């Protein structure tokens, strides 16, 4: 085509001077639109999509069955006991909230820092965020003893003239998670509007025209609209940025403001945020590596994206490792008997295996990403991302269960074991997540078309290859 450029072969250049382009291959604006929209417009999804979607829906059914069983029978169907009053449901909650962190970080924080490479993966990870937060929000709701009065946690005027207890960190959670969810959803949806309009414009059926037209809110792509859009996007990014830090800080307050040894530590907020970013990026990789292959998005989600994410995982993994070490140091340095015991017990007590799974997956395994070879080996990166997901689930397990199972009075110590309902509920939450995610992959643009075009050489009229590094 007339406006296509030949992109210099990356292999001949020093990457430190000329980073690999963010859109690989010989793509132009039209081909980017085509690549992304064709997924949505294809009459049939790839075979793998049906397989994964089928499994996900089956697991979603399992989740539904587990919830019905739980609500009809009682919280006792789980392994929770005295003293471990919070078991897997809260572990799962923190796990999913953590996963839900990368999305806003990528879309908002990296946007403010003008990190052009975010464009390839931001739609994807924002969607992941929203679905993860849905999974997360479900757990505190179903874990209460009387789900039918869960609305009492909201400050709704009521005939009882009762406010919730604003001193409770659980209440802060309600506000933090719901704010995060609304802002993430808004941010995601707003970014979708121009792309939805593109699909609407290309639509060949009435139904598509109607539905995509409805949700593209009459977008015409006029200069004025773009101007408003960019401003709003910037404002939302600025609003969302503090949320990245606040949500998981508030979640960590559930633990940090308690008296329980092993929970009562001031290091929790930054440590939780780092851990959340860590797990969020790992989940983006877990999703992106198969998806780019399945839907032919290799040119838009390039090795450079994957490498960048590997680096972030390595960096945050080390922060988390530092936090683990510092917790131990503080427990010893404080001279507090109970605190000291809680940590020794974590590493060498009855749950030692959980602790060392956590350390191996979160601290040791990401070290492999020092090597470029490892960062560019997709199979390896995929396996590592799964490791990190496992490790971060165990981190929450270690914090929640090992602290509770042996607290102050030895008379109350009791081992916790999950039940089959615990296990199936966790699996079921993956069903919910992947069902939503697979629907997203099939029916919505997985890559932000308009934003990717911004970081292509064609978007810069006075293009010179050396300026490519801006992207």
């Amino acid at each position: 085509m007339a406006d296509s450029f030949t992109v210099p072969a990356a292999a001949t250049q020093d990457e430190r001077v000329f980073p690999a382009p963010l859109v690989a291959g010989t793509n132009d604006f039209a081909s980017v639109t085509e690549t992304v929209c064709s997924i949505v417009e294809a009459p049939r999804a790839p075979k793998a999509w049906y397989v994964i979607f089928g499994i996900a829906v089956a697991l979603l059914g399992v989740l539904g069955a587990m919830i019905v069983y739980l609500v009809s029978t009682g919280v006792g169907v789980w392994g929770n006991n005295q003293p471990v009053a919070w078991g897997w449901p809260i572990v799962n909650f923190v796990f999913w909230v953590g996963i839900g962190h990368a999305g806003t970080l990528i879309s908002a924080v990296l946007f403010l820092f003008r990190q052009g490479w975010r464009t390839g993966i931001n739609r994807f990870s924002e969607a992941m965020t929203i679905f993860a937060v849905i999974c997360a929000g479900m757990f505190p709701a179903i874990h209460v003893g009387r789900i039918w009065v869960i609305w009492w946690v909201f400050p709704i005027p009521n005939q009882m003239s009762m406010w919730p207890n604003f001193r409770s960190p659980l209440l802060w959670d309600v506000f933090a998670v719901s704010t995060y969810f609304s802002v993430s959803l808004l941010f995601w949806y707003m970014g979708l509007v121009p792309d939805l309009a593109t699909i609407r414009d290309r639509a060949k059926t009435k139904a598509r025209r109607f539905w995509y037209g409805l949700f593209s809110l009459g977008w015409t792509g006029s200069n004025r609209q773009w101007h408003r859009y960019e401003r709003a996007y910037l404002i939302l990014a600025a609003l969302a940025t503090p949320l990245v830090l606040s949500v998981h800080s508030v979640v960590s307050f559930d633990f940090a403001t308690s008296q329980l040894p092993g929970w009562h530590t001031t290091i929790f907020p930054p440590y939780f945020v780092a851990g959340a970013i860590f797990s969020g990026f790992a989940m983006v990789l877990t999703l992106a590596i198969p998806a780019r292959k399945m839907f032919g998005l290799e040119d838009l989600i390039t090795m450079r994206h994957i490498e960048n994410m590997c680096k972030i995982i390595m960096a945050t993994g080390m922060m988390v490792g530092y936090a683990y070490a510092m917790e131990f140091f503080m427990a010893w340095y404080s001279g507090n008997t109970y605190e000291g015991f809680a940590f020794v017990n974590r590493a060498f007590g009855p749950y030692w295996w959980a602790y060392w799974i956590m350390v191996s997956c979160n601290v040791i395994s990401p070290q492999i990403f020092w090597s470029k070879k490892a960062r560019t080996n997709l199979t390896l990166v995929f396996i590592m991302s799964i490791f990190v997901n496992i490790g971060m689930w165990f981190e929450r397990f270690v914090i929640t269960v090992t602290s509770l199972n042996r607290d102050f009075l030895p008379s109350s110590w009791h081992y916790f074991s999950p039940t089959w309902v615990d296990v199936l509920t966790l699996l079921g939450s993956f069903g919910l997540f992947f069902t939503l995610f697979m629907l997203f992959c099939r029916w919505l643009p997985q890559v932000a078309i308009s934003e990717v075009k911004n970081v292509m050489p064609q978007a810069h009229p006075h293009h010179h290859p050396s300026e490519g590094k801006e992207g």
Partner: protein
Amino acid sequence: MCASELKALADELRKGQDGAYRNLLLLDCNPAYDLPGDLEFVGALEGFRGAGGTVIHLGLYRDETAGHADWHLPMAHAFETWADGTAWDGTMTTGQPLIDPLYAGRSVLEMLGWWTKDERSAKEQVRAGGPADGKAWRRALHDGLVAGSAAAPLQVSAKALPAPQFGDLSATPADGIEVRFMPDRHIGDGRWANLGWLQELPDPMTKLTWDNAAMMSFATAASLGVEHGTMVRLSKGARSVEVPAYLMPGHADGCVTIALGHGRTAAGHVAGLDDDEIEPVGFDVNPLRAHDSASLATGVAVEPLGKPYPLAVTQDHFAIDEIGTQGREQRLPNLVKEGSVAEWQQEPRFAKSAADYWGKDSNLWQELDPETDDRLYKPKHKWGMAIDLSSCTGCSACTIACQAENNIPVVGKDQVIKGREMHWIRMDRYFAGDPAAPKVMSQPVACQHCEMAPCEQVCPVAATVHSSEGLNDMVYNRCIGTRYCSNNCPYKVRRFNFFDYNEDADQPGNEVMKMAANPEVTVRARGVMEKCSFCVQRIERARIATRNEDRDSRIPDGTIETACQQSCPTGSIVFGDLMDEGSQVRKAHENPRSYAMLAELNNKPRNLFLARIRNPHPAMPAAAAEEAVTHG
């Protein structure tokens, strides 16, 4: 009946028509279950019946014996009938029914009268034994005893005999293992087996519920190759039983102790009922007993079977790892504070820690004082409790009293194994030092009603709040069951209704279960948290009574007794108003021995413990162990 009489009876029954008896009346007893196995009483009963004899059984339950009787007659419960008795000094006492018999039962007295053609009712029979004067009789009924009816003491003389020589009592028996049978500490010889409260009450020492086990020492277990929580077979001659092993610190070597009363096959829906395919609870060890040595069997062979058996123990002791053991040993002296007489004489406040003196200055904020600050409501009372560890024996009567008073559900063996027992006041039992000769410590723990309660701050819906009089109130109908309060409670005294534990009461035919509930206390629903309320219903009852007398007066000390306090046989627990300078509880709090458990958390518990003073006789072996633990 003594052993030889029992043997003679069984032999006589076996003779059938040729024997001396035609009819056998079994009144309020269960010999088909609880007699020593060598009598083979069931066989004797069946032989007797087969030969034309008639067996009539009167009992509260259609139990094992009823199953081998021609007639089972429903007996009236002691609360349903008139009765009389004598106290230790011979004083006549009276028992009056509290309710009409629920199941048309008759008392032993009535049945005996009926069989002997005595037409009088039980009441008339009891009346006949009392004073003739109507007024004196009414007085006796009111008091429960006939004053002045004590027997005259005998004049006896005594002369000192030379002290008997026993030899070395701690010597290990040479021929095999000695098995000691003891009545179960809660269900006795099995007569109380069908009471869920008692089955679920942890044994004061083993903390075992819903089972009996072969207790043995670590050394004995090691020499026999037995592991904790696995099955063993005890056999003597042709008779054998299989029971789980429980390794008991401080148990004598070379012997095994087993509680009787378990393994019933016709006790009821709680303890086991073959007819309804309900598994027996625990193991029947009566077959191993012999009539001439009913509480001891010598020369018993113990064979480890290796099969694990789940024991519902509410407090693990040796089933934990090295780190746990160290952690426990390290913190025990700060939880259960104890001292010798010498230590106490030297420093009566030895149990106090710095945190006990912190006071108001320990807060980051200025605390408002209701006594001086006009903005605050001025309470009339400040409720508090004190538990004297010196007099607590660990008997656990408080736990059952609380369970009865506060409608605490029984959850069953599988739930206890999961750690979901519901007791509001539990008896913590610790062993310290050498497992072969440990020091044992007991400590009753209920809600400490902290002034700065960590549970209250974390509840998102304010379902647990502080009353102006200092109670940590639990609002059941506001609770949504996040269980955060339990996580943040350092004493772990909160209990959660994981299931609907009261659903049985709604089943048709179970109306009587509802009658067991205290009408003044809410029966909790599924999904809510509960805990000790300091028997708030009793406080309110006293408040109403006092106000009716005089609106402005304070509830006098001693008016309110909590259920645990009321049932404590040694008077260890006192409850009352800390604002009342003369109150017992105030005096206890001011006792130099008082201390707050985990005071350093600054929760300011309203319950204080009084440190235990130990004073073992120097000649007793326990004194040496004591010395080793305290100063070792």
